[in-house]
């Protein structure tokens, strides 16, 4: 089994007003390639901290984090930036598109920070936009798009660097129920094509989509269940460019 990510006994402490807050108290998870993991938990359970560590936005106090075969837990800031640019696809609750850029340019941003913008790369960006159904909106700005469309741009952007896994933080938190279903369908479809997805949510309905649910409480893993009935939710899919 090839692992997309692996956390080994990871702890994270924060110092807040002179007091140490133990946000994560020894987390060990393996995320195999192609997995669809939902990380759930109440606020304060440590799921944001876990997300930040998985997203290489932060470093653990102790323990190791592996992306593929590389330990990223002790890397320097610049190296972490490179990892983020090349191996992680972020999907945020509030879409987080850059307002002054067009749809196509937004999709290109991670490539830009890898100094990769060959004509093949640009074609790939167009193909991704087409895959998420926005081929006719390439020149639009984020403000000219609906929430669901914006999130689809964000998903295209998260795929552009062919990441180890997609890291989705409440991806449907700002969407109505119809669009929520659209986005979830898209994620399920991507997973069906072999994309590893780590989804952070507090909504059980959405968590149920995943093959596996990891529940956190007080910085520790409360449960780690694998479900088998998700197969039925899969849709027939086009291939990912």
């Amino acid at each position, binding site marked *: 089994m090839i692992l997309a990510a692996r956390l080994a006994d990871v702890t994270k402490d924060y110092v807040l007003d002179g007091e140490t807050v133990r946000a994560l108290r020894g987390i060990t998870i393996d995320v195999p390639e192609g997995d669809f993991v939902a990380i759930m938990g109440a606020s304060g359970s440590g799921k944001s901290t876990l997300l*930040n560590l998985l*997203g290489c*936005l*932060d470093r653990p106090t102790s323990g190791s984090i592996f992306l593929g075969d590389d330990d990223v837990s002790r890397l320097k*800031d*610049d190296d972490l*930036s*490179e990892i*983020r*640019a*090349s191996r992680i696809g*972020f999907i*945020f609750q509030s879409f*987080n*598109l*850059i*307002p*002054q*850029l067009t749809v196509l340019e937004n999709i290109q*941003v*991670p490539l*830009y*920070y*890898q*100094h990769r*913008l060959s004509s093949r790369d640009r074609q790939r960006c167009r193909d991704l936009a087409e895959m998420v159904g926005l081929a006719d909106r390439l020149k639009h700005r984020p403000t000219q798009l609906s929430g669901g469309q914006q999130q689809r741009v964000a998903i295209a*952007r998260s795929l552009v*660097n062919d990441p180890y896994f997609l890291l989705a933080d409440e991806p449907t938190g700002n969407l109505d129920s119809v669009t929520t279903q659209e986005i979830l369908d898209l994620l399920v479809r991507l997973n069906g094509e072999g994309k590893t997805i780590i989804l952070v949510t507090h909504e059980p309905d959405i968590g149920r989509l995943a093959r596996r649910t990891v529940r956190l409480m007080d910085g520790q893993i409360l449960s780690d269940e694998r479900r088998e009935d998700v197969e039925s939710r899969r849709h027939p899919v086009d291939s990912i460019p």
Partner: protein
Amino acid sequence: MDLFWLRTWQLGIKSLLLHPLRSLLTVLGIFVGVASVIWLLAIGEGISRKAQEQIEGLGADNIIVRSVKPPSEVTERTRGVLPYGITRDDYKRLVATIPTIRSALQIRELPRRLSYGPRSVPDGNLVGCTPQYMEVVRLEVDVGHFITPVEVRQKATHCVLAAEVARKLFPLEDPIGKAIHIEEAYYVVVGVMKPKGSTAAIGGSLAAKDFFNDVYIPITTLQARIGDFVIQRRASSFEREQVELSQVTLRIDRIENVEDTAKLVEETLAPHHRNRDYSITVPKELLERAKTTRLMFMIFMGVIAAISLVVGGIGIMNIMLATVTERTREIGIRRALGAKRRDIVRQFLAETVVLSAVGGVTGVLAGLACPVVVGWIWYLLETYLPRAMSQLPDVVKTMQPAIVPESIPLAFGIAVTIGVIFGLYPAMRAAAMDPIEALRHE
């Protein structure tokens, strides 16, 4: 420049265009700074060039000794005739004792009303001089000839008119051969000079010496016909003065000897003139002083302009700090998507460089327009405020702004440097943000 850099600039411009007015105002700060560096230096250079030109008009190898009316406490003590100023004896003494004097020139000037038929020049300046005068003062003949040695010897009642006088008295006729009326006598016009600009002030007076209303006659004629006595009507009385020579101009053999000769002249004259009724002007010294003044002037102007550039820079910094705060979220997104700290620094620096470069380029263009615009300003002032204009010193009025070539790269360079320096801090602040915090920012 590879595609990455191209993108950086593109992005910078795009971000700036999100707030066009704000960017415009920021650019304006730098624009004004750059333009004012070029303008101030050009005007400073123009004025000092004019001043130098005027001093050079006096002749760098000359020493000018001029009669000066003693201060009023001396004049009030004197009853009757007040003799003052340089005498013919002084002149002979100077020429006889100082070997470095190549040639010497004596002049007697009197204010006189000039007239020809119904036309007159009330504030004419009658100049008794010798043929050398033309060469020493650098006058040029337009029509006829200047005073000749023969005329001096014969004490001829001939005169030569300055261009302006000729124009006023003879607007339509040829003045040559006509007799003009000066005081109680008639003088036949034998020549007209070409117009000549003013030279620097000499002999303690502040006004520049102009040649507009001059009429030249042989000095011997002036002495024979008018004499040394001057009667001036005062409010309640007449004042009689006795002045032999108004001015003696000494031409020195070599320019290095000018200063030493000036000292000798001073020592020769001092014992005979207890009440300091003369002044010595050394154009060469004036010239050197003018050069120092020019330097100081340039530094002064430069400092003022530099201040305005710094103010422009602070404007940039202010706006960039606001921009960074406003775009915290964007910085967070970019960091999450793989931007390194230096990518963020680069992005914001590109914006400040664009701002300051646009300000710099437009500022340089506005700076280059300086001579034209100054021309318009003078024209407008002449047309609508002629009185205010006439109050201005001659150096300023006739000044042509001269763009100092170095000021263009200098101003542009300073503008961009200031952009980078003042942009660096906001950019670093942007880069130093924690990506997690930045992403959470609303």
